[in-house]
């Protein structure tokens, strides 16, 4: 009994600290149903590089991403919101979003993934760009379906080039500076998910 009371108090006290979350779904109930039509429920957890491994973990993530976290807003203490989707008692997949700096504003890149780390859907919750319609079109976002982090290993986010499936994603607005930012956002999301879901 004593333990339950202490645990409840700790949860109550910590709740306000977690309220400033980086990239949440605007309408989780609706979005989960849309991305995982057969799902029966979901669980929201708040993850943090700082809490879960600090600088060594950040170094690992940056190494796999092939780029440093930079700027005022891409920092070690950002809280990430992970939605674990259930079908009955088993996990059906995950939804996770990241903020990524774009040319004209912040991009919120959300991925839904199966339990093996393959992208089942990709969409922008927010995107500021002159080519919004092209990037939001299913002809563009569908190209990410079925890809996993391995497909991005041969793509360099700093050189903005490479080989493999990720490098062959068609840019609907050639020359547009948001395209490399989108690929970086997707790769960052996948690298973080590899840690959060503990995929090898």
């Amino acid at each position, binding site marked *: 009994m004593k333990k339950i009371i202490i645990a409840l108090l700790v949860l*109550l*006290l910590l*709740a*306000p600290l977690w*309220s400033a979350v980086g990239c949440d779904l*605007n309408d989780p109930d609706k979005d989960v149903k849309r991305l995982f039509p057969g799902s029966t429920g979901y669980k929201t957890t708040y993850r943090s590089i700082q809490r879960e491994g600090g600088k060594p973990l950040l170094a690992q993530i940056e190494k796999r991403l092939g780029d440093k976290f930079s*700027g*005022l*807003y*891409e920092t070690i203490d950002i809280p990430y919101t992970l939605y674990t989707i259930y079908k009955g008692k088993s996990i059906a997949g995950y939804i996770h979003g990241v*903020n*990524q*700096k*774009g*040319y*004209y*504003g*912040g*991009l919120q890149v959300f991925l839904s993934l199966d339990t093996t780390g393959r992208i089942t859907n990709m969409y*922008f*919750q*927010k*995107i*500021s*760009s*002159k080519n*919004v319609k092209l990037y939001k079109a299913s002809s563009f976002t569908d190209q990410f379906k079925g890809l996993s982090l391995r497909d991005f290993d041969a793509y360099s986010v700093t050189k903005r080039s490479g080989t493999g499936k990720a490098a062959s994603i068609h840019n609907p607005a050639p020359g547009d500076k948001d395209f490399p930012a989108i690929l970086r956002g997707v790769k960052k999301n996948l690298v973080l998910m590899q840690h959060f879901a503990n995929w090898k």
Partner: protein
Amino acid sequence: MPSISAIAYKNLKRKRLRSFLTLLGISLSTWVLISLLGFNQGYERSLSTDIDNLGFQVLLTAKGCPYEAATLMMQGGAGLRYMPESVLDSLATQPEVQKLTPMLMQAVFDPTIGDTGAIAAFTGVDPATFPSMRTYLEFAEGAWFTNPTAMEAVIGYEAAELEQRQVGDLILVPDKNVELKVVGILKRSGTQDDGTIFVPYKALQQVFGVQGKLTSVGIKVHKNTDINAFEEKLYSLQDVQVVSMAQVKSTISSLVTTAKVMVMSIAIIAILIAMVGVMNTILMSVLERYQEIGIMKSMGASAGHIFRLIWSETVILCLLGGIVGALLALGLATLTESLIRYILPFSPKGSLILIDFPLVLRSIGIIMGIGLVSGIYPAYRASRIKPIEAIRSSEGEL
């Protein structure tokens, strides 16, 4: 020989669960009471700070209903009406005016936000006069605009965080496809400016094709100016409306008065429940110790001794409950504030709950007072127990 308070404390420990539950009731009541009184204090102060931070005492807007004007000022709302820029010349001649700052609000639908889009708002300000009105604004990076017509933007901290912008980056005005260069990021100020994108008003007029038009003018008056008389004077200008900060304060205060009355009623109910709980606990305790009290009296304890003993139990419960409740109120102030923000139609940016030492003392005093009143009856009944009757029967009737 142990003191009366030591015996009272020992008695409470004999029935731990019952004492704990009573203590919990008192603590929760104290928590609610302190949080609500703290809210009354904090809300008023934050609202005043928010409005004082606007830097001007009077806002002149284009004619419309007063609620629209207040919304426009506090939240950069929609339903824009314009007044000619020439109004600045008329205002500058008024002797009461110390400073003027023209403003132009513009809102545009941004289809890129979320699935259904949202409104993106821009605030056009005058780089020559606006910074001197908002002296509390500091820069995390960069500075104000390089010239009054530059296609530049200064962004509040939260807006910059959302847009991931730094000095030198660009932002796009939705729908217009116009690029603005970010020249400054403001530090977090705890005001509505944190979410604002400032642009030189001349540049904003050009972008939105509203040359020579303003949505509002902020006016700072000289000290000792009769603001009411000045407001009346301003109405001589055509198609304008005057909103004083005092008016805005009272409008918003009246909006939350109903909520305040409701929560205070809940607090009073909580206190009454705690009072009944204390009385019940002490009465039960007296009832159980009916024989024991009789023996104490037969051994020489006076009615006064018994009264003080029972009353002391009430004092201990209320004092401990009050302290625990105060700690709860202090520890959970952030959570309580989040709940209030969720419920209220408008919340100022500063701390909504202000709990200071005098408030804590006052609240514990109120709880103690209520507890002492609740303890009088059981203590009185205990002091009237007749020793012979009590020793003869194991339980009494009160």
